[in-house]
């Protein structure tokens, strides 16, 4: 499994991650970012792209 972590002190809700990796990142009904903290290896490329797209560099992928 791949670990994903969003630093919510940095996140400013640009939603770039939601666009790039909609399966792993979503906004819930209260506008809060919800995301999968562990994703399968197949999704690695996608979450890494989300990390790159994030304007705040708030997403860490291990």
């Amino acid at each position, binding site marked *: 499994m791949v670990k994903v972590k969003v630093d919510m002190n940095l996140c*400013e809700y*640009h*939603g*770039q991650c939601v666009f*790039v990796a909609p399966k792993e990142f979503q*906004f819930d*009904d209260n*506008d809060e970012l919800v995301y999968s903290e562990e994703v399968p290896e197949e999704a690695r490329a996608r979450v890494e792209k989300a990390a790159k*797209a994030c*304007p705040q560099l708030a997403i860490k992928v291990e």
Partner: protein
Amino acid sequence: MQHTNVKSKCPYSSEAVDDISLLSPAARACPYGAYARIRAEEPIKYLADQDLWIVSKYEDVEYILSNPEKFSSKEALSSGNAYRDFPKALEILKQSRAQPRQRTLILADPPEHGFHRKIVQRALSPAKTLRAFAPTIEARVNGFIDKFIETGRFEVVSQFSIPLPMALVSMIFDVSEEQVYKMKRWSDNFFAALTGHVHEEIVINAAKDTLVFENFVLDRVAQCRKTPSDCFIGRLLQQPEDERPLTDAEIINICSQVLVGGNESTINFISNLVYQIASTIGLEERLREDPARIEDLLEESLRHEPPLQAMYRITRSEMEIGGVRIPKAAKLMLNFGSANRDETFYEDGDEFDLDRDNRETLHMAFGRGIHACAGQTIARREGKIAINVLLSRLRNLRIADDIPPVRNKLFGVRGFQSLHVIFDH
């Protein structure tokens, strides 16, 4: 089921564009041939007559957007001198209440920008806004269609593309229908003046409208201070204890940017979507069979025809980009229209291809990095609702052959001045 690929080629791009000036009539009809030549011959090209560097490759545009500490946004709209050569307009603007002048949000750099951005993001709160307004938007779109459905044809820009973002902006600012159309006039004049190269009369009107707009915003601010409100302006005023409040000038600037951003680019986005459907054989059927593909339509249209063709940055020091030496304080035109068709990243980029995977290479239509469009979720939803409702009511959309489409005069906003479409229902 068998699908024909729905792809369409630009009818103009085979024409050689010898004149690389982006202001020529040929380039206005289709700038993409000129972009392709720039990418091939001189990817970062200096235009002496405009004292401007065109940045045409995807990688270079992305690099510049991702390094705001090296590239300033202070003239992001290329508007540094919209009023400078017009003493009468400057005289009018002396009465402006947006003082002291302050570069805000789209024109601000870190750390100031981050402060503005956070407040705007909170005030726009796209998910909340859309949840509140989406059903109303849908009803409104149906209302626009009711007005022309019996005639079997419509002028897309005035009867469809303009009213939708206008309705949304009216909901965001919580103002009346009538006020909205006044705001549209302000926003038109703002935009004309911002883009430069315009007549004195337009600039003077823009200056006058600026004052009207400021008064509208500041009256609303005063109201919201008395009776707290949950409209956009009301939310701009609700800052946490540890933050300083926005100044009047900042509030005015933010509102005008949301007004212009929320209107002009979205209008052209919607027209481009309708044009694509009406001019691409087989596209309408595929969207009808599988409405989930509307999302692919939106992304591929934003890639293929980004409504804002370019934004601008200023170099903070002398530097080298892509092997080219660029002096300090040079103005760079970040050409999204070109980057979005860069052959290094896109195969057959001139082709509109519904099946292209736009998550593979992210298009630049909303910019990238710290200034990435704050309204992109809203714009996408507007496009989605518009096309959903359109396809549910009308069929067999095609470009009217008696009145040809007219492109925008300004190269920077890619879309239409008028677009006549016929249909069955």
